[in-house]
């Protein structure tokens, strides 16, 4: 049996697979950011808080209404998406004529409020959310024990990511969206309600974050801070990928999950900063990001 730098290949496969699972979350979140950025031109700082909300809504559905995981996978993103649309209409929409940085500041404030409220109500220790019984247990792959749920996370994330890609790149709705990004006035002139398009887009991007939150609920603890640190990593992912393309953000998300997974094996101490280091390098070599349009 050959070894790679002292790590048996089975263990390496295992770690790569785990990296892919983390990458699923990065991909979903950076995709949501990219979709929102594409049309609204703001960076949604509240994305982490909304991801957290997704997990909490799933928890609430279960504990207050007895609604289980599978319906929650649809209902929670829907609820959070509607919440997002309300916020977009009431607040964010007032900032479009201003510098985009105000959008960043506003959503930062929103993130503080949402996190603070949940912390007051539910404390910080985290709430338990069980893995759905259909996905309990796992498979012995020979090189590792893969819990069924983690496999499902990768599959679900891939499905949603490529579904989104398909919708934006290949359908008429997507074509409209892309057109509105390029020239909102012209699209408006064709009788399309651009503000409504924008609201729906924001709601959809936010729903993606909430979907990631529901996926995360059974494996990470459901707590008000779960999105706060994650969002900063996702920002770095976004800088690395550049927000030029939908596909780019998906590929970067999964790719960086893999890189982080490898770091955990070879240099675990560095796994928290590896993404930031890569970001610095990318900035030096290709400031617009791997898939970005030139600024």
């Amino acid at each position, binding site marked *: 049996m050959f070894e790679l730098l002292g790590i048996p290949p089975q263990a390496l496969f295992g770690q790569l697979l785990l990296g892919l699972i983390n990458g699923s979350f990065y991909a979903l979140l950076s995709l949501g950011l990219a979709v929102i950025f594409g049309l609204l031109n703001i960076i949604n700082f509240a994305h982490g808080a909304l991801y957290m909300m997704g997990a909490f809504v799933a928890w609430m559905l279960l504990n207050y209404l007895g609604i289980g995981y599978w319906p929650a996978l649809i209902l929670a993103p829907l609820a959070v998406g509607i919440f997002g649309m309300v916020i977009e209409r009431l607040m964010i929409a007032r900032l479009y004529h201003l510098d985009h940085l105000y959008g960043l500041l506003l959503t930062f404030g929103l993130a503080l409020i949402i996190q603070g409220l949940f912390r007051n109500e539910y404390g910080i220790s985290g709430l338990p959310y069980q893995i759905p019984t259909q996905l309990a247990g796992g498979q012995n792959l020979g090189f590792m024990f893969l819990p069924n749920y983690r496999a499902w996370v990768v599959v679900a994330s891939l499905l949603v990511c490529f579904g989104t890609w398909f919708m934006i790149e290949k359908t008429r709705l997507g074509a409209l969206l892309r057109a509105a990004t390029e020239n909102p006035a012209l699209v408006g002139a064709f009788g399309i309600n651009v503000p409504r398009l924008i609201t729906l887009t924001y709601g959809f991007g936010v729903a993606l974050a909430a979907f990631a939150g529901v996926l995360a609920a059974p494996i990470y603890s459901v707590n008000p801070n779960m999105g706060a640190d994650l969002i900063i990593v996702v920002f770095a992912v976004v*800088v690395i990928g550049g927000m030029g393309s939908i596909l780019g953000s998906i590929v970067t998300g999964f790719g960086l999950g893999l890189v982080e997974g490898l770091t955990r094996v070879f240099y675990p101490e560095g796994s928290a900063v590896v993404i930031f280091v890569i970001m610095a390098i990318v900035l030096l070599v290709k400031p617009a990001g791997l898939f970005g349009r030139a600024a």
Partner: protein
Amino acid sequence: MVTGPETAPAGISVPVTATGAARLHLAIFAVALALALAAPFFLYPVFLMKVLCFALFASAFNLLLGYGGLLSFGHAAYFGSASYVAAHAAKVWGLTPELAILLGTGAAAVLGVVFGALAIRRQGIYFAMVTLAFAQMVYFFSLQAPFTGGEDGIQSVPRGRLFGMISLGPDINLYFFVLAIVVGGLLLIYRIIHSPFGQVLKAIRDNEPRAVSLGYRANRYKLAVFVMSATLAGLAGATKALVFQLASLTDVYWTMSGEVVLITLLGGMGTVFGPIVGAAIVVTMQNYFAGFGAWVTVIQGTIFVIGVLLFREGVVGILARWLRRPL
């Protein structure tokens, strides 16, 4: 960042003679200084020193945002690392307070050069995200490096003797030392803003391509103001370490970066006095709301939202428009 006419700082949209404004500023400075000299005899000096440090920190940040047009979301990195270096120098190396502060400030300057050079390669929101990510790196470093004491931070930092002679142990002595530093720092910032360098900076902020076409190397100016801002933020952080005799992870965490944005936004970005007023409000608020736990976060968030939606000019900005004078 302030590009549209709607967001232009009040100081620019109101036509006044430069000398008139300078005279007004001088008068306000004098009154504020007189108040500051008397304050420690009436209020808790430790609280006042905290206000002073944050006033300097926010003014340094405002130099970058309000006049350079660059929103950094990672200024905690410079504030905090200077705080660590100063604390370490005072405690472990036994340096006198003024040397410890200088060393801390220097560390922030070096960090500012490195991060600034990279960050200015991107603009707008990307710039904000890049600075945030770099600050997070500094945070992780501070958490793991042996000399920072991890979660414990560097505690019981000696206040020491100024120039090896005057003891800074008593709050009142330290207060006047801190006041001298902060006033010095603020005057320097005022000088920078009103120098030819500051004028070019504003030109770049308002219309970068035009400034470039006039032959200014925009990136050099941006880097310069970034480094100055980081350095002065470091000065504030190093001073803070001596006041509280503590350097901790709070100083480098991203919430600190958010706090300085809040202070500046609330006080009025792109105004001379805004950050000072903002610091006084926010620190007072934190002091009185400390018992509310997580509600502090909610309140801060609410101020952010209301500030962005309704009071983009901040307290001082509104005052300035009302007085029809730049403040």
